[in-house]
């Protein structure tokens, strides 16, 4: 896209800038021996014509871009273009002068022309080079703006992906049920209702924040799970009990962000929620031999129930594979009336990400 013609509002200032240039040209011609009248009548149309000719500097700018082409190429291309433009302009000036000579006011002007040739050529080259510089400037400006825009777009895309991940992560029914519980507590226990609002807000904020990181300390992941369980405990009451066993050394170990959360949600949604009398969700984090082991265990309903834990587990498995390759594992099994998921990753120091 032409940096001047393609933008509304750029051609006007560009042409306006040529008005003083036309004056300058007339002045030079006056010094060259023409009368003010002769100089003005000669210079004005020449300036207008050259203003438009210089817009063609875009083509050489394209064929020799500042970024990509060597300095020599840029210099040769632009100087050649400058010379050609100036000569063509000179020819037009000569033609114009020959035409004007038929008027009495221009009698004898042609004789002075040979002395003006050098001046006009020099002015033509300089003006062209200025125009080329302006084109380069505007092109560079446009590119910078474009780069900024695409960087912004990339960021928006990344943020969208994160939100999508969060949407997949936070079960909407969890939100609906929580809101319903809050609605209920407002009537019976306003203080508890407020507490639950705060818990829910914190949980969502934390999910968003942690979702943006690659790896986070286990301690943070556990804190998020704790918040989630606190909210669910309001709904499930006595039916939901939580037992935690965390090695002292495990806390600072890094794990992929939001990898424990879906496992804990599954334990409630597919375990506790299906049991009339509820049960205990056991969460453990152990660190030994350079390995970090996270386990989530929940009792399950004895009879057949429809289970949908597969997708959540699949997601976790994929993320582990992407981050650690074969160095991480996820084992899920049913044993002794309980569903147990064990996740093993290399125990790293304080995580980066």
């Amino acid at each position, binding site marked *: 896209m032409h940096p001047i013609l393609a933008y509304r509002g750029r051609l006007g200032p560009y042409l306006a800038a040529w008005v003083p240039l036309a004056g300058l040209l007339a002045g030079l011609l006056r010094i060259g021996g023409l009368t003010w009248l002769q100089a003005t009548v000669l210079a004005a149309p020449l300036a207008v014509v050259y203003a438009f000719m210089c817009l063609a500097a875009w083509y050489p700018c394209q064929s020799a871009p500042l970024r990509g082409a060597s300095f020599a190429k840029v210099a040769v291309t632009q100087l050649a273009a400058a010379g050609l433009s100036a000569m063509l302009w000179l020819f037009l000036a000569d033609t114009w002068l020959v035409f004007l000579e038929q008027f009495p006011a221009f009698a004898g002007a042609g004789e002075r022309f040979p002395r003006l040739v050098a001046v006009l050529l020099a002015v033509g080259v300089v003006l062209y080079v200025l125009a080329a510089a302006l084109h380069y400037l505007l092109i560079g400006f446009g590119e910078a703006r474009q780069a900024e825009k695409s960087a912004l777009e990339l960021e928006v895309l990344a943020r969208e992906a994160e939100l999508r991940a969060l949407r997949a992560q936070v079960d909407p029914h969890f939100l609906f049920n929580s809101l*319903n*519980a809050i609605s209920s507590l407002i009537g019976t226990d306003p203080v508890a209702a407020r507490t639950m609002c705060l818990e829910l807000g914190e949980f969502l904020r934390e999910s968003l924040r942690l979702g943006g990181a690659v790896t986070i300390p286990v301690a943070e992941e556990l804190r998020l799970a704790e918040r989630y369980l606190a909210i669910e405990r309001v709904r499930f009451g006595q039916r939901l009990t939580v037992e935690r066993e965390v090695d002292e050394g495990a806390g600072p170990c890094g794990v992929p962000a939001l990898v424990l959360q879906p496992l804990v949600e599954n334990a409630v949604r597919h375990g506790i929620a299906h049991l009339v009398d509820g049960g205990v969700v056991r969460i453990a984090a152990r660190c030994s031999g350079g390995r970090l082991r996270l386990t989530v265990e929940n009792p399950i309903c004895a009879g057949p129930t429809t289970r949908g834990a597969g997708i959540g587990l699949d997601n976790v498995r994929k993320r582990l594979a992407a981050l650690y390759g074969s160095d991480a594992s996820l084992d899920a099994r049913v044993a002794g009336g309980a569903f147990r998921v064990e996740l093993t990753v290399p125990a790293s120091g304080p995580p980066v990400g």
Partner: protein
Amino acid sequence: MESGTVSERLRVAIVDDETPARSLLREYLSAFPDVEIVAECANGFEAVKAVEETAPALILLDIQMPGLSGFETLELLPCEVAVVFVTAYDEYAVRAFEVHAVDYLLKPFSPERLEQALRRARQRIGRPRGGEPEKLAAAARPPGTWPDRLVAREGGRVHVIPVDALDFVEARDDYVCLRSGGREVLKQQTLTELAATLDPARFVRVHRSFILNVTKIARVERYAKDSRLAVLLDGTKVPVSRAGYAALREHLK
């Protein structure tokens, strides 16, 4: 007629496994002097028992519950009871209306929305839900999917029978007898209706009065010229008619 029904007290049962959800309904309902809460249940089993004992006109029923789902619970309730589903899940709405629910409340909901549901329920009360519960249960499942368990009721007692454990089903007058591991449970339903809800990949009607779980068959013996006996893994013998044998052969091909 309208004014006559409005002055009548509406007997309501609340069924939801979450305490806050029940107390919310209780709170909302307390604003209606003509509504009487006759039972509050935390699951489907309690609901079946409570409906038997208190005979509510309307039941406010959650869908996702431990033990029995709302739909399974409904299957076990007498069809005079009007039902309003109260759930956080909007994906069951179509199924809910197929089982002739009066209304479908999405959590969280407003008192006005509940009032609207109660108004609809009053108009419906006295008229039984269309169709028999079992047919409704069949309609309540997405096409191409089969239940993995069956529910039956004997008085206030509820039996849940995993379909995998089912050996065979025998027709007995207006009932079907569900046999699993030597245990028998009667359910008020016709064999044809039940057959429609069972996965044809596993269950074959081998006789006018018998549906057989093909995974439980040990062998088939010739019994008379035109009839055979299927011997199950536990030794039980089930008659197989000529047409049934053809169906079985077709299935095992």
